[in-house]
């Protein structure tokens, strides 16, 4: 039976890895630090989790050790953030190309400089093209559930790809939330032990990570891409399994009061909760506004997104990262490309908000709505604006 607990979300994430009975955790705790790794070290030290805890000397080595451990056939977990994620960059592409089902929790935070350890999405937006399955959690319960789900998807024989669970640094990782903690039997029923497709085995030698000459490189990339695109159905299937096992259901795209909305906010991560509160307040004032939250970021759920925005008169896309030198933030750029490809002329207004731990309040949503509505009414071009810049 699940227990209702109040728990810091970092610890909930670590508890999920423990319930998944991971074999190896290779992690570097500090660039910047979260309690995820600390708590796992504690669980191993106290004998609550039988795993090898490898306290590596950098995130580059963390991901490298994860690649080795996963290739040896072990269920492998790590966690990172910001500069640390950037340091892993090189190996992230290799992990997906080698089809290794590593699971990583990413506490989304700003990238230096200037040095800033607080929340935004600049770290993960620099890792959009790494070929991993990626989800974004909105609250503590989602962090726990998506972490369990990540192992299920990653290790599925139809997928064999690494998975990142994104959670907002501080706004999620450092707050205590009420959540339902499943018991071991429930988790074991959902997530059996890892049975690798291939591993480094002296009785069945294989070569992994070979040279890809121009004659084979394109085909290798295509094969990995197909696996990522194919993971979409598996992601949904294992969310359905989760609903059956734990009674909580998840969708690639979440909507809130969107059916009759004229304008829709598009958000990712914990901002969705503030957005919903703001929408309730705006609805009371008679404003027909709703929201769309992207939970599955890679592979991008194109049809789900299009269905969610159907009928909307305009979109307000909130980016929590800059894409310097192009007209919009990374999420808006992608969504506009998608709308164009589908021949949809939905006006889009893009705001870059909440950089480096700057609060995004309910009032900010109201101001954004007003500005966007004015722009839509004027029939003007899409603009990208940074919210709350002090002059």
């Amino acid at each position, binding site marked *: 039976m699940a227990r209702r607990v109040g728990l810091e979300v970092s610890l909930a994430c670590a508890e999920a890895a423990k319930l998944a009975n991971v074999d*190896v955790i290779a992690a570097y705790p500090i660039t910047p630090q979260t309690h995820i790794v600390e708590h796992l070290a504690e669980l191993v030290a106290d004998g609550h989790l039988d795993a090898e805890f490898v306290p*590596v000397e*950098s995130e580059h080595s963390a991901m*490298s050790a994860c690649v*080795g*451990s996963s290739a040896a056939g072990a269920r492998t977990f790590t966690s990172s953030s910001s500069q640390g994620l950037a340091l892993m960059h090189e190996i992230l592409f290799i992990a997906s190309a080698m089809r290794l089902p590593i699971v990583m929790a990413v506490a989304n935070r700003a990238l230096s400089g200037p040095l800033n350890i607080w929340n935004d999405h600049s770290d993960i937006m620099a890792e959009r093209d790494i070929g991993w399955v990626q989800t974004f959690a909105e609250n503590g319960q989602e962090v726990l559930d998506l972490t369990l789900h990540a192992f299920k998807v990653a290790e599925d024989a139809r997928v064999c790809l690494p998975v990142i669970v994104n959670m907002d640094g501080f706004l999620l990782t450092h707050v205590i939330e009420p959540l339902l903690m499943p018991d071991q039997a429930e988790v074991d029923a959902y997530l059996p032990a890892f049975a690798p497709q291939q591993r480094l085995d*002296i009785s069945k030698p294989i070569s992994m*990570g070979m040279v890809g000459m121009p004659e084979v490189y394109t085909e290798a990339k295509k094969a990995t891409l197909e696996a990522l695109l194919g993971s979409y159905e598996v992601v949904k299937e294992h969310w359905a399994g989760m609903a059956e096992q734990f009674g909580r259901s998840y969708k690639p795209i979440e909507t809130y009061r969107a059916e009759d909305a004229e304008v829709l906010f598009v958000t990712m991560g914990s901002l969705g909760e503030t957005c919903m509160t703001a929408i309730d307040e705006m609805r009371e004032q008679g404003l027909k506004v709703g929201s769309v939250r992207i939970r599955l970021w890679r592979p991008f759920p194109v049809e789900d997104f299009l269905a969610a925005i159907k009928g909307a008169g305009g979109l307000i896309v909130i980016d929590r990262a800059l894409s310097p030198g192009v007209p919009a933030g990374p999420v808006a750029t992608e969504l506009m490309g998608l709308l164009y490809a589908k021949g949809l002329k939905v006006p889009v207004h893009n705001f870059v908000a909440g950089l480096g731990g700057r609060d995004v309040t309910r009032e900010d949503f109201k101001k954004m709505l007003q500005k966007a509505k004015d722009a839509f009414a004027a029939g003007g071009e899409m603009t990208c604006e940074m919210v709350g810049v002090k002059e």
Partner: protein
Amino acid sequence: MSLAADALKNFEKITPKNIPLVEPLSKGHRGCQGCGEVLALRMVAKAVGSSMIAVSATGCMEIITSPYPQTAWEVPWIHVAFENTAAVASGIEAGRKALIRKGRMADDGAKVVAYAGDGATADIGMQALSGALERGHDFTYICLDNEAYMNTGIQRSSSTPWGAGTTTSPAGKKSKGQMTWKKNMAAIAAAHNIPYVATASPAFHLDLMNKVKKAITEAITVPGPAYVHIFSPCPTGWRCAPEDSLETARLVVNTRVFPLYEVIDGRYVLSRDVKKPKPVEDYLNIHRRFRHLKPEDIAVIQKRVGQDWDRLMALVKATNPEASAE
């Protein structure tokens, strides 16, 4: 505390009569003619045998043995990137340890052996190596030292010797080529207080194979890594004849330029006492990478080689107090 010396007490040596016939690194790879590195790696693989899990850095030995869909490896082999070989090996070791302990895998006695070139060891991979040595994973790390980045076109590394011309340390009017002294990786490995460190040269093949065998033998009972630094001639990069490869591997030892020794539990043991060293010139003259050096430059190298040898002898003496008392 278990000691490597105890684990090696009944060590069964490889001799000309029992050289392993197994070839985990099979023929058909794409190495250059006279490559001393692939020869050394073949000896390493023979000494370890078919229970080897090979972990490769990016480099010559990786590209010549694994152009997909071909592989020269008869044992499980993995390559991930340039600078992380030791970290990958530590992950494999940790994964296997957990799986064996949790009863999900039988202990098949496989040995994790990582190998990398001098650039991947002494330069870009130094941090990952130091981390893995310090954490004490049970694995063997082999540095195949050909004294420059050969795969990419002979660029200098921190393991390139003083005076050698490379494409990024060319000799010119204002330069004698490499103007820094070779980084002493074996000493750095030994400074991690690991159970076993050794240097080897493929010209002394039994010595090389026995050191690798010792490294994997002590690992069975002694927790912690082993490090073997192997001098690996590169005729292509050193600009010498392929047939001079082994001769150069012999002369580098017999001139005291590259001494052969072991560090067992911190105790320095000389493998080959070069009582009457040949002049360094004999070694340097084989390679065109040194041809710009003048007699006074060679004298500088000769002096440094003498100092390094004296320091090594002092370490041997200092770490073998009983022997010196006799």
